[in-house]
């Protein structure tokens, strides 16, 4: 059930209040070049559907709009953000990072990039958006209980992926870390 919010002022207030959060949500999911276009698309869709906006859960609702918008944006794979790519840029700017830290980050990034999209989304909502399960469930269109289960499983699979990314090729990771550290 929803509460109609149909005046420009309420939209304007909400836009200004939640712009940063929505922009961040999108920057976590598409590459930086594509983000502004997607942000514009999300707020345009939100305006068109403003009569559906639930006042009590506005930000999760906006995230949900963004999620569906991104489902379309993802048709162009080049727009999809890869954490390892972002990490390479960040790491290049921090040459003093300890090699072990870089190794860990690379493994974590590789593990995250290798996960299925559903697990990635659950982890993003939990870790980066910091949403409580009740709100994260709204974004995903599932029950709070279902979100708890998905989160538990995603965390478990993420830890397994990190282990896998680290153990088979430790020497390779060290080489990569040394390369990054040398930049």
């Amino acid at each position, binding site marked *: 059930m929803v509460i109609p919010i149909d005046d420009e002022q309420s*939209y304007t207030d909400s*836009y200004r209040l939640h712009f940063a959060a929505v922009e961040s949500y999108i920057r976590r999911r598409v590459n930086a070049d594509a983000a502004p276009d997607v942000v514009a698309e999300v707020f345009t869709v939100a305006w*068109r559907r403003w009569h559906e906006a639930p006042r009590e859960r506005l930000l999760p609702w906006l995230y949900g709009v963004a999620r*569906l918008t991104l489902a379309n944006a993802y048709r162009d794979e080049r727009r999809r953000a890869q954490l390892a790519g972002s990490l390479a840029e960040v790491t290049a700017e921090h040459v003093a990072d300890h090699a072990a830290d870089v190794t860990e980050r690379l493994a974590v990034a590789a593990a995250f990039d290798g996960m299925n999209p559903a697990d990635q989304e659950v982890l993003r909502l939990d870790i980066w958006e910091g949403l409580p399960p009740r709100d994260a469930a709204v974004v995903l269109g599932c029950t709070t209980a279902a979100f708890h289960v998905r989160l538990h499983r995603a965390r478990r699979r993420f830890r397994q992926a*990190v282990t896998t990314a680290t153990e088979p090729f430790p020497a390779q990771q060290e080489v990569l870390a040394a390369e990054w550290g040398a930049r």
Partner: protein
Amino acid sequence: MMNGNALHTLKALDPAGGSQVHASPTDRERLLANVLNTSRPAPGPAAGLLRRWRWPLAGVAVATSLAVAVSTYTLFGPNAQPAQAMTPPPLRYAPGSESPRAVLERLAVVALKDTSRVPAGSSLYLKHQGWALSTRIGQIQVTSAIVPSERETWKKADGSMRWKQRTLPPRFQNAHDEEVWSDAGAVGEDPQFTEDATGPVNANDPLNRPAPEEPRAMGKWLLASQEYAGTAEAFDSVAAHNLDELWNGRQRAAMLRFLATRTDVTYRGKVTDRAGRAGQAVSVDSAYGGLPTKYTLILDESNGKVLAYEEELTTTAGALNVKVPSVISYFCFLTARVD
């Protein structure tokens, strides 16, 4: 070694770098102005139902939402609408003595006789009519007449859809009501047309996959989009899915057999829906939407298809200025076929 801290490390890798804004204030205000200059289509009843399915928010009072809608347009709309909202007459149910379980099982058996399948990759054509108390015509909450809408939907295999919607002629219960409607601006006298489209859906989302053909899986699937696993929520999901999906006989049987497991389903009897089709009605009472409401599915006796869906306030209207009992929403599913 790092596994215990992997989640902390991941948190530190936030590509957005926290929540700082990257767009400049000028760009943000420019975007806002551009967005506000875009048009907004009037919401239709189908959008309302899909919305609830997509964004289920249990605990938010329908009373508040609808009261806001009514008062907003009564006070500020260009056309003064009566605050006492007109609602459609309730359908006439002929109560039967069968148990709901027996009725649903009988319909499931009939549904299973339909062995046709929707070929993979098919496009669909669907049509339905509906009305809801919160529907607006040209941004106006029409409370002086019943103005249903008819919607045609074309859906591709990738889930993308386009639809056209038009308002149908206003309906009145008597001449006095028509006079009141006329004095209030005769909103809806001329048909209002809207159309829109959506892109492909996320195929990884389980909710976008075909409906299960086994009762337990069907129940889980229907309730996956709802915050609480109540029977009324399942009724809501059945209706929402039928707006843009074509279920085969096994899927319909799974739905019917799942509903047969719910002890709060009641058999309401035979009824003719608002499109003139005879069917069997099963109901459930629930206040999950905020007010005590009876949710009813009308099912085709010959094949178990969902013919119609109705919501009625039963004991109190809360802040709504409607009488009780009142029908506050209905949908008639008219066509669903491979295009």
